[in-house]
C-alpha cells in the first residue's frame, strides 16, 4: 500500500514532467506573446518610432488614441472600409457555405470529390498566385468584364469595362467576392454539423406534413445554430485581420484603388513600417483592433442567447 508521502512524491514527479513538456510553450508564451503584448500596450502611449532608438521615446499619454479618432481621417476611412468588408463578406460567405453544405448533405456518389472541389478555392485563396489571378480577372480587359459585357449585350444594356481594383466604387467588391469564394472550411464544418442532426426529427416533421421550408426553419437552422455561431465568430475574427489580398490586389501604394482597399491592418502596416515607422501609433491601432474584435465577439455571444439552440436531450 502506498503511504501519503509516496503519493505526494508521485504528484511532484507528475508536476515536474508536466512542466518539462510544456516548457517550450510556456517560454514561448512569455517571450513571444505576453511580453510583446505588454510592450505594445506600453508603446501605444509613446511616440516611439523605429527610426529612433527605444531610449529616445517620449510618454505622450492618450495622444495616440485621441489622434486616431480626432485627427486622422485616413484611419477612420480604413476602419469604415474594414467594417464594410466584414459586414458584407462574412454573412455572404456563411450563407453560401450553408446552402452548398445542405445541397451536398445527401447520400450522393462522388460526394468526397465535390467536397474537395469546393474546398480548392479555400486551399489556394490566401496565396499570392490567386491575388495575381484576381488582378487579371478584374482587369479592364479581363474575363469578368468580358463576361458581364456579353451578358449586358444580350439584354441590350450598356456596359463600360473598368478595372475593378482601381475603381473607388468597385475595388472593395473584388475582395468581397474573393472572400466569399473561399467558403470551403465553413462548408465542411456545416456538413459535419448537418450529419449530427437526428434523422427522426425530419421523419417526424414529414409525418406532421411540414414543408421543406418549415423543416429548414424549424429543424435545420435551430439544430445547426451552435455551428453557425462558431463559424460566425471565427470568420469575423479572421475578416477583421485580412491583409495579404488587399495589399497585393490593391497594390499597396497610394493609388486610388489601393486607397479604397486600405484595410485596418494595411494602414497599421503603413504607419508602423513605412515612411515615419511610427510604431507607437501603430501599437495603439493594434490595441484598438483587439478591443474592436473582442467587443464584436462579445456582442455576437450576447445576442446568441436568443438564436442559438443548445438542444435538450439527445
Amino acid at each position, binding site marked *: 500500500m502506498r503511504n501519503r508521502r509516496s503519493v505526494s512524491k508521485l504528484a511532484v514527479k*507528475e508536476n515536474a*514532467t*508536466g*512542466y*518539462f*513538456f*510544456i*516548457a*517550450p*510553450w510556456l*517560454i*514561448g*508564451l512569455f517571450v*513571444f*506573446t505576453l*511580453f*510583446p*503584448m505588454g*510592450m*505594445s500596450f506600453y508603446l501605444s502611449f509613446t511616440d516611439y518610432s523605429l527610426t529612433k532608438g527605444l531610449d529616445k521615446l517620449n510618454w505622450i499619454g492618450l495622444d495616440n488614441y485621441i489622434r486616431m479618432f480626432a485627427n486622422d481621417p485616413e484611419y477612420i476611412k480604413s476602419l469604415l472600409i474594414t467594417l464594410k468588408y466584414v459586414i458584407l463578406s462574412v454573412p455572404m460567405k456563411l450563407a453560401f457555405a450553408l446552402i452548398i453544405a445542405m445541397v*451536398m448533405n445527401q447520400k*450522393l456518389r*462522388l460526394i468526397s470529390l465535390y467536397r*474537395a*472541389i*469546393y*474546398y*480548392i*478555392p*479555400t*486551399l489556394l485563396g*490566401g*496565396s*499570392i*498566385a*490567386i491575388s*495575381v*489571378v484576381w*488582378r487579371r480577372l478584374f482587369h479592364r*480587359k479581363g*474575363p469578368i468584364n*468580358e463576361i458581364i459585357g456579353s451578358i449586358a449585350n444580350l439584354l441590350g444594356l450598356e456596359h463600360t469595362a473598368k478595372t475593378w481594383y482601381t475603381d473607388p466604387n468597385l475595388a472593395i467588391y473584388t475582395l468581397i467576392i474573393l472572400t466569399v469564394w*473561399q467558403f470551403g*472550411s465553413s462548408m465542411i464544418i456545416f456538413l459535419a454539423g448537418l450529419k449530427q442532426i437526428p434523422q427522426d426529427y425530419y421523419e417526424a416533421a414529414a409525418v406532421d406534413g411540414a414543408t421543406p421550408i418549415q423543416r429548414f426553419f424549424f429543424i435545420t437552422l435551430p439544430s445547426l445554430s451552435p455551428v453557425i455561431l*462558431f463559424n460566425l465568430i*471565427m470568420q469575423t475574427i479572421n475578416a*477583421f*485581420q485580412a491583409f*495579404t489580398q488587399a495589399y497585393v490586389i490593391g497594390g499597396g501604394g497610394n493609388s486610388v484603388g489601393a486607397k479604397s482597399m486600405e484595410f485596418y491592418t494595411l494602414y*497599421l*502596416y503603413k504607419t*508602423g*513600417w513605412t515612411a515615419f515607422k511610427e*510604431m507607437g501609433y501603430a*501599437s495603439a491601432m*493594434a490595441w484598438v*483592433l*483587439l478591443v474592436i*474584435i473582442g467587443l464584436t*465577439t462579445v456582442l455576437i455571444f450576447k445576442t446568441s442567447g436568443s438564436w442559438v439552440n443548445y438542444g435538450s436531450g439527445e
Partner: protein
Amino acid sequence: MSLHAKRFIKKFFTHLVIIFFAIIMLYPIVWLFMKSFTPNDEIFSNITALIPQHFTFENYVAGFMPKGTLSKSFIYYMGNSMYLSLVTVLFNLISCSMAAYAFARIRFKFRGFWFSIVLITLMLPYHVITIPRYILFNNLGLINMRDVGGMNLNFLYLPLTLPKLFATDAFFIFLLVQFMRGIPKDLDESATLDGCGRIGIFFRIIIPLSTAALVTTGLFSFLWTWDDYFNQLLYILDSARNTVPIALRSFIASDSVSNWGASLAMSVLSIIPCFVLFFSMQKYFVQGITTTGLKG
C-alpha cells in the same frame, strides 16, 4: 410517377446543381492554368477562352529568367520557400506535440489554467504582437544577420522559425490535445505496469497513435508558411533569401500590363505543392478543419 423515378430525378438535379456551381467556382483556377500555356498575345485576343490555340511553354521559360528586382530564377525562390516551410513543420511538430501531450495526459498543477490560456491565445489578433515582436527581433539583431562573426546567417530565417520552436501556433496544440484525449488511457496504464515512464509513453504510445493528427499539423504548418506573405514581407530583407510570396509579388510589380504570361506561369508553379499535398492527403484536411474550425 413512381417513388423510385422521383428519387432518381432529384439526385440527378442535385448533381447538376453541384456541378454547375463547381464550374463557376473553379473557373478562375482553370483559367489561370490554361492561360499559363497560352502565348501572350493570344491571352488577350480571346480573354475568356480556356483552350489555347497555340500551346506553349514560353511563359514558363520567361518566368524562370531572373527579372526586375529578382536576381535569381523563380525555382530558387521555390527552394527557399520549401526549406522554410519544412523547418517550420519540424519545429511545430516537436514543440506542439510536447505541449499537447502534457495537456492531454499529465496531471500537473494549474493544467486547466494554462490550457485556458492556450484557448485564449487562439483568438488573439496577431497584429497586437507583431510590432513588439518585430522590435524584439530587431534589437536582438536577428532580422538581418548578414554579418554575424563573418557569416551570413539569414538562411536560418530566425524571426520566422524561432517562435515555432516554442509552440506559438496554439491551433496545433488544441488540435493535438483533442486527438490525444481520444487515445485509450488503458494503454498508458499497461505501459506503466511494464515499467514505461512518462517519456517512454510519449514516444512509444502517444506519438505513434497520433500520426493522423500529426500529419494534419504538418500539413497546415506547411501550407500556412508557404502562403504567409505578411511575416515574410516584414522579416525577409535579404533578397537572396526571398520566398515564393515575395518573389511573386515583385513579379507582378515589374510585369507590364501587356505581358501577363510569365506571372501566370509562375503562379501555377507556386500552387503546385499545395495541390499535391491536398489531393494526396484529403482526409487529413477534413479532420483538421472539423476538429478546430481552422481559419480560411
